[in-house]
């Protein structure tokens, strides 16, 4: 039953929640930020997460995976949204692993998937070229050269771009600028000659980078799938990423809302607990309504990844659009309802506010997904 967790899924969710609360609370992100940590996440923690099997949840057993389904990974990611845990989980276990699993050759799968599952290799998806998510507007070029190719172009908002071992680059082999035809996916080491990486410090204190590719030599075997025909794989990878990001935002929204409701029950003004004021009760209750609806949307979106992939594009856009709106509303209300301390750096609510804004832009903002949903529905 897709909309209710089974026993195993509940267990996984509880394990993830306990582990992350213990080992990677919001305080850990604050430390990474304040220390201006070079890696941007804790590699020892990532190894532990991989030992728990989190990077291999969705992968087939043949490649060292658990074959537990995408819903399982979504539950873990939702919990990581509660703690704002910085890790390669999204960029490597969702985007990188999905691209290789869905588009790679048998040899590529054998080479990369067990390594990703074990936490030995991390990946980053170098897709965006402008400040808005436009996955078809690709100017980066992949041109044949000798036995292989040459890569030229520049990318921005590459999550984990400065820390990942391998870069998964979307480039154009042919076709017009805005065409979905002619796109290619290549996997190359970040330290390849001609690759320059500029780390960017963003609002959420998580990893992102701008990357330039100048006359980079790409061997033929680095192409994932067929050169010039990457769109179907890329779209499926992006949709999985959107659903996973929606799951993270659900966790983020729940945690910031629960913290806010707890505050409403302890803060006194005018001789009364502020949670007894109807003006605040109704706003909180309306958020609860939207949270319940979004919970159903995320559970359904997670389950269609494995069970009804033909519905994935519609559900991914529904989930990302709804969760963008929820995360924005909840984090704004969380700050407002906390009053003065809500705008201090000392209170962790600000971390949720900032992560929400970055998450809202990842793989498509609200407008992008409303437009896509409407187009998919034929209006």
């Amino acid at each position: 039953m897709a909309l209710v967790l089974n026993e195993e899924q509940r267990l996984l969710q509880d394990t993830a929640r306990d582990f992350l609360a213990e080992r990677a609370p919001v305080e850990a992100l604050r430390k990474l930020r304040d220390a201006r940590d070079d890696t941007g996440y804790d590699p020892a923690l990532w190894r532990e997460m991989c030992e728990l099997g989190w990077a291999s949840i969705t992968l087939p057993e043949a490649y060292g995976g658990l074959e537990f389904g995408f819903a399982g990974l979504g539950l873990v990611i939702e919990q990581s949204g509660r703690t704002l845990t910085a890790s390669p989980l999204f960029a490597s276990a969702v985007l990188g692993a999905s691209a290789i699993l869905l588009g790679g050759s048998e040899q590529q799968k054998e080479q990369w998937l067990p390594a990703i599952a074990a936490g030995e290799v991390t990946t980053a998806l170098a897709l965006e070229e402008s400040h808005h998510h436009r996955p078809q507007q690709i100017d980066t070029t992949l041109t044949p050269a000798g036995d292989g190719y040459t890569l030229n172009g520049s990318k921005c908002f590459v999550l984990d771009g400065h820390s990942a071992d391998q870069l998964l680059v979307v480039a154009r082999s042919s076709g017009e600028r805005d065409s979905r035809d002619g796109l290619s996916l290549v996997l190359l080491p970040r330290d390849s000659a001609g690759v320059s990486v500029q780390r960017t410090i963003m609002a959420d204190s998580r990893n992102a980078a701008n990357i330039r590719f100048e006359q980079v030599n790409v061997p033929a075997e680095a192409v994932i799938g067929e050169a010039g025909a990457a769109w179907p794989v890329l779209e499926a990878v992006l949709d999985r990423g959107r659903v996973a990001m929606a799951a993270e935002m659900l966790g983020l929204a729940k945690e910031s809302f629960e913290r806010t409701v707890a505050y409403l029950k302890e803060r006194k003004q005018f001789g009364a607990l502020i949670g007894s004021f109807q003006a605040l009760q109704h706003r909180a209750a309306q958020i609860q309504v939207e949270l319940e609806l979004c919970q159903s949307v995320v559970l359904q979106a997670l389950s269609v990844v494995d069970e009804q992939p033909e519905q994935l594009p519609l559900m991914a856009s529904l989930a990302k659009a709804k969760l963008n709106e929820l995360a924005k509303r909840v984090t704004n209300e969380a700050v407002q309802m906390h009053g003065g301390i809500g705008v201090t750096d000392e209170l962790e609510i600000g971390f949720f506010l900032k992560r929400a804004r970055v998450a809202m832009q990842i793989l498509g903002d609200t407008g992008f997904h409303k437009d896509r949903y409407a187009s998919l529905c034929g209006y």
Partner: protein
Amino acid sequence: MEQLETFRSEVRQWLEDNCPQSQRSLAAPEEQYWGGRQGSFASEDARLWFERMRERGWTAPEWPTAYGGGGLNPQQARILKEEMKRINARTPLYSLGIWMLGPALLEYGNEAQKQQHIRAIVNGEIRWCQGYSEPGSGSDLASLQTRAEDMGDHYLVNGSKIWTTSADKSDWIFCLVRTDPAAKKQEGISFLLIDMASPGVSVTPIELISGESEFCQTFFDNVKVPKENLVGELNKGWSIAKALLVHERKLMSEMGSDSPREQVPPTVAAREYLPFEDGKIADAQLRSDLVDYEMQMQAIALTHFRTFEERAAKVHSAAPLVMKYAGTEAEKVKSELLLAIMGSRGLGWEGEGFSASELDTLRLWAMSKAMTIAGGTSEVQLNVIAKNALQLPQS
């Protein structure tokens, strides 16, 4: 699972064999069968369809067979509903008795009351209406004033009830009455069944902004009610009423998908009334409003399914608490959206120059305003969510 699939194919075959073709379309209001002493069938097919469903107990699929119900479990009932929806089969019997009173009687009634009333509801013999609200007590239901005095061998009822839907066509009314004027508000209320044919009961219809008058005011003037018509314990009617309100709210939240006079879906209306450019609705604002509504409805539908699944899995969540608010608010959004899409064609009140569906759209728009008021206003819903789901302190 396999058993359920077998059940599904049996149901499908049975419906195929037994549901007359004329009963496989949305029923206009005058085509609905509500039962009761005044009830009449719009056609011979409607009678046939009702009688066949009644014989299987499928007018009340989940009720015990001992009282004439279908005895289905929740999963089977859902399958029956889905299969009926698949062929657009009409609801064979519309009934507040089935939707509201019956579940409460099965839980709180004594054996004699179940014997007397449940089968009569399943069989459509008695039509029920509800007497909760009063002219002086709207959202604050517990302040109700209609009194039932203990006269030894009977209760003497005086007062009036408002918003008694279709009271003029009903045979019996289930009422909340005050039996202990000295007790705190909720503690002196009892749940009483009253035969509308009793001397002293009178009914006046109320005309609404939609032009309809399905609601009535019902007056009780020294009405004698036998003591065996008290359901549950004396002065404990409030908890029964609360249990019943849950059914009413569920019903209201489902009305969008079950409504007999369904409005044209907004996506269909958009194709008929709006210009498109490059496959997209040209008006960017309307397109954005439409997609907002469609996404919200999909989220609500998924949550509705989630409540089914949670019920079957015996999992508790706050989802059922939010359905009435979300469902009725979305219905209002839908009606406003349809008017915006239809422009002046959506504003026809009656007569020539407008299609029947355009006229319906406006009437349903007006009626939609009542949906966030009846059965507990949206504001009361938010109070309930704040208290029961969030456990916020009460002032």
